[in-house]
């Protein structure tokens, strides 16, 4: 067997490039541009309050940053990118890892550290102007809607094909309630509670796999497994609403804690599985290159590829974490590189190992359910073989479900606070109500889910996510120019990401517009909606996506224009460099 035709080669080359990015390029930027000074007090020391501002060691903060930025993005994006073959996906992941991804996370972190630990909103206000903050607020509102849509879609179809994962999810929820009670009310030892919670999770996986009820697709309208038109959406939305509405220590805090353990095991298993592929005989099943054209839904390689792989390459979500939390807990400035760049390069590794799981299968149609199947094929030979395969596929399906659910519950809470901010004091203040906003946050995304087209929803989500990253990179460039420092390392990727993502959003608006105006089905599953409520309902669902896309595009263009103005102002500004 040729070693170059195995996932090993992808992962090994990728890890070498990541090492180069961390010990070469990021170190050079760190020394030349930001020049960290270990003696300069950070916001964690200047404003210590023991709640938001307090110094934390670099290893703790690295772990926290990685855990906060890790979600479904790096796992699912490579699957869509395979429309163009594995080579473009691989090249974009390593190119972004080297020159763009860590640049955003690290620079946003440093920007906030040098600006009293301010978060993204105040930074946009200060460096660009008041309109920028308002635009950002509107942008985030729709951004969360799209993340929710993309992740709910994935959870629905994965549970539909692997019903065992629902029972495991239910065990997770029950374990979270028990853990929360034992830790916060009974004050039991955390190690004993952790052991109990993990035992419950293992029982959940075993019971889910052996129980395997109902059969795949039996709760799907139309009866075809893997469709988002599934009744599984109902219990999933109920769990999400509970997470969004209950106090944090009751469900979200313990649930995120317990979910960490299977997630970390999955990441390690995938990495080992990929590196062991020359021994296990697992080969690449996807062609290296399939062409530039893509499909009607995806559009051509540019811009689709660059928004398809989100967090595994670059993600705007990370800048919110870097500026909102990590910058306030950085002990010394020299920790910014291991925390910001180190965590992002670890996330890139997750994207790379996920790509390794996707490329070992060659399905006819791209779907989120291919990932657990590919991961099982990659890992089963080193973890018990055929006998263990059903348990491993349940494990990887819950890996996806847990990754989505834990972030969705946090986003649900965030969404309702942003809704309250937007609508309080207006005639629509009811929309800011805790219960109304929570329901809207999880029910509105179902309108996207009913398009049935995962690729389009994902590319919408990726477009807005990467556009936010473009904003962050350019805001960093504005600050650096004000300080009379070289900004090209951040400005060039920032401009590239903004142009690319705006083009991607525009293309998706075009796709949805064509589907709406020509009464076209975006996906065969929309036949179910057509038969139930007529073609008008299909057009309404697709038309809703057009409206959201147009709003996102307008907000993006307006922000782009403001950033360009701010850049020209910054070039003309005469600010002395920070001492």
């Amino acid at each position, binding site marked *: 067997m040729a070693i170059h035709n195995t996932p090993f080669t992808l992962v090994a080359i990728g890890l070498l490039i990541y090492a180069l990015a961390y010990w070469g390029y990021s170190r050079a930027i760190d020394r030349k541009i930001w020049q960290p000074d270990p003696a300069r007090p950070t916001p964690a020391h200047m*404003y*210590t*309050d*023991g*709640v*938001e501002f307090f110094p*934390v*060691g670099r*290893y*703790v*903060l*690295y*772990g*926290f*940053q*990685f*855990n*906060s930025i890790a979600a479904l993005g790096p796992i699912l994006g490579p699957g869509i990118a395979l429309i163009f073959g594995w080579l473009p996906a691989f090249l974009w992941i390593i190119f972004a890892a080297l020159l763009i991804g860590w640049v955003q996370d690290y620079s946003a972190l440093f920007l906030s550290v040098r600006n009293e630990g301010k*978060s*993204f*909103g*105040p930074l946009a206000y200060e460096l660009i102007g008041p309109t920028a*903050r308002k635009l*950002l*607020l509107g942008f*985030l509102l729709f951004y969360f809607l799209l993340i929710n849509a993309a992740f709910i879609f994935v959870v629905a179809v994965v549970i539909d094909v692997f019903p065992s994962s629902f029972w495991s999810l239910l065990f997770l929820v029950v374990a979270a309630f028990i853990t929360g009670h034992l830790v*916060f009310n009974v004050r039991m030892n955390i190690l004993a509670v952790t052991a109990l919670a993990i035992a419950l999770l293992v029982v959940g996986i075993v019971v889910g796999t052996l129980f395997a009820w109902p059969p795949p697709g039996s709760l799907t309208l139309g009866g075809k497994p893997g469709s988002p038109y599934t009744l599984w959406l109902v219990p999933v939305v109920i769990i999400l609403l509970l997470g969004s509405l209950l*106090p*944090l*220590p009751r469900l*979200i*805090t*313990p649930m*995120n*804690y317990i979910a*960490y*353990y299977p997630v*970390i095991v999955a990441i390690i298993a995938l990495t080992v599985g990929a590196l062991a592929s020359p021994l296990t005989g697992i080969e690449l099943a996807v062609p290296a290159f399939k062409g530039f054209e893509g499909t009607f839904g995806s559009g051509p390689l540019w811009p689709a590829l660059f928004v398809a792989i989100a967090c595994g390459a670059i993600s705007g979500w990370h800048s*919110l*974490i870097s*500026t*909102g*939390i990590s910058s306030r807990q950085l002990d010394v400035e020299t920790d910014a590189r291991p925390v910001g760049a180190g965590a992002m390069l670890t996330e890139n590794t997750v994207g790379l190992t996920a790509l390794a799981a996707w490329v070992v299968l060659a399905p006819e149609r791209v779907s989120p359910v291919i990932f657990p199947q590919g991961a099982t094929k990659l890992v089963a030979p080193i973890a018990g073989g055929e006998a263990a395969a059903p348990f491993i596929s349940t494990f990887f399906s819950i890996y996806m479900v847990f990754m989505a659910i834990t972030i969705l519950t*946090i986003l649900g*809470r*965030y969404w309702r*606070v*942003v809704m309250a*901010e937007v609508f309080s004091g207006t005639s629509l203040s009811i929309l800011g109500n805790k219960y109304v906003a929570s329901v809207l946050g999880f029910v509105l995304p179902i309108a996207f889910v009913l398009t049935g087209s995962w690729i389009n929803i994902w590319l919408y989500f990726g477009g807005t996510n990467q556009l936010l990253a473009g904003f962050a990179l350019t805001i960093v460039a504005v600050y650096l120019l004000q300080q009379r420092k070289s900004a090209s390392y951040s400005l060039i990727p920032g401009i590239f990401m903004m142009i690319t993502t705006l083009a991607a959003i525009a293309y998706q608006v075009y796709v949805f517009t064509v589907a709406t105006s020509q009464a076209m089905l975006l996906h065969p599953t929309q036949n179910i909606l057509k038969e139930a409520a007529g073609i008008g309902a299909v057009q309404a669902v697709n038309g809703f996506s057009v409206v959201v896309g147009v709003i996102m595009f307008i907000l993006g263009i307006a922000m782009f224009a403001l950033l360009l103005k701010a850049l020209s102002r910054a070039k003309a500004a005469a600010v002395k460099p920070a001492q």
Partner: protein
Amino acid sequence: MSEKRSGVFGKLRDAVKQVTYGMALHSQVTGVLKTRMYIEHLFTLMILGDMLGLPILPPYYSLRLLPYTIPSIKSWKHRFYRERDFTDIIYG
């Protein structure tokens, strides 16, 4: 965290322990601290309500409880006066 260990393996063990804590628990701890912060804000408001023109508690009880509030007044003032934004509240 516990005392730092010396030697390569000791340092490695420390690092793994801290990364594990950071990944598994730090965000949960931050979330719990924030919940406590909001409750403390409420407590401070109850005790100092008189000064703000909000007679929430009779002054007798406010004065009896004042010593419990004094230690956290400085950080409360800092948090209270700091500009808050929608991008500040990702974890509660």
